[in-house]
């Protein structure tokens, strides 16, 4: 995977899954809660958004933009279908000097590790991954990176953060079904 540069339109792109898209109906019982975690400690930027691309639709190019905070990312209203993370991004660099947006490609040559089929509504964990940088050889070769599966934080830890987020964010307070799903799963772990 190559480290990409971001264009300003990405800001609008990220918003497309939030402000620009129809609000998820809190009474809709057909949608799922999807979540995961990216450890960006060794990345040149923070994690601010994750794009979940939909596959198997008549016309490709549909996606959800998942909000991210401290590595945790989630969406409370994903419709049934086939998905995988295709991109993610954030901002990095030295403020007022080199600060800029970054965009990363998770890999779209067939199925990647986050591939998911949602057949029935529920709770779906995409996993925990950490950003690993591979420095390029010499001055001319660009750095590459990979997202390696990681055991830490585990699903239980990630879920605890998610529950905390759902309970503390007032804009999500209507999604009680999603919160109950998360708490039920947490009790099982």
């Amino acid at each position, binding site marked *: 995977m190559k480290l990409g540069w971001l264009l300003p339109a990405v800001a609008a792109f990220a918003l497309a899954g939030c402000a620009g898209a129809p609000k998820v109906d809190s009474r809709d019982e057909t949608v799922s809660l999807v979540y995961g975690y990216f450890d960006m400690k060794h990345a040149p930027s923070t994690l601010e958004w994750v794009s979940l691309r939909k596959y198997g639709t008549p016309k490709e190019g549909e996606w959800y933009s998942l909000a991210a905070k401290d590595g945790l990312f989630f969406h409370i209203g994903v419709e049934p279908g*086939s998905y995988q993370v*295709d991109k993610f991004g954030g901002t990095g660099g030295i403020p007022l000097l080199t600060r800029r947006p970054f965009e990363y490609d998770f890999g779209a040559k*067939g199925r990647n590790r986050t591939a998911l089929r949602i057949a029935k509504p529920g709770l779906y964990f995409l996993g925990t991954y950490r950003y690993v940088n591979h420095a390029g050889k010499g001055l001319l070769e660009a750095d590459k990176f990979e997202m390696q599966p990681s055991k830490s934080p585990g699903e239980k830890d990630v879920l605890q953060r998610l529950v905390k987020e759902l309970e503390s964010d007032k804009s999500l307070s209507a999604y009680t079904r999603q919160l109950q799903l998360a708490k039920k799963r947490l009790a099982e772990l």
Partner: protein
Amino acid sequence: MRALVAYAVAAALLAGGCAQPTVSEGVGSLGEVPGDSVLLVGRIEIVPRIKPEEQTFKVGWDAFNARRHYIGRALLFTAEEPKYRDYTDHVLNPPLEETFFVRVPRKHRYMVKGSVTMSFQTRAVSRRQVATEQVELLFPVPVELDIRPGDRAIYLGTLRLHRDEFHEVTKAQILDHYASAAAEFKGKFGAGTTLRKALLKPVRAK
């Protein structure tokens, strides 16, 4: 200017970032196949079949019609060694779902990368940089081309690739449809040249 840069990226993809590769899209007569090359006859089928609306190619100003290499076609990179490489100096660019006739250097006995591009887009991210976004259906590789001394034309078989919704190949078959391919070969090039059956052979990991 941005469009020019965008096109350069698309061209670089085929060029492997350095020297311009030879792209074999199809052969109309045996005169186009020099002595150091061999004519390959075969077919690639994708199941389910790729619909036109599933493939996108957006590079801004496509002055040299690079689009034609991607839509409804495969890109097969060949080499002398069975080592995985993203790009080589020779690319076969056969059409999908029909019998193809392409030429390959006699020494290139391995297909080291094969793909169908589902989506290829470039976008300017600054005055000097362009980002590319590419979604590919990747073929299982490496695959050996059984080219022998004296061969002028060989039949590779039908490579039938089954895919899932993520464009991941879930099953690969090499089918022998020699009779119908040989009839097409005879109709196109006449009866004077032998089409030897030499089905594709997956290279086993050592």
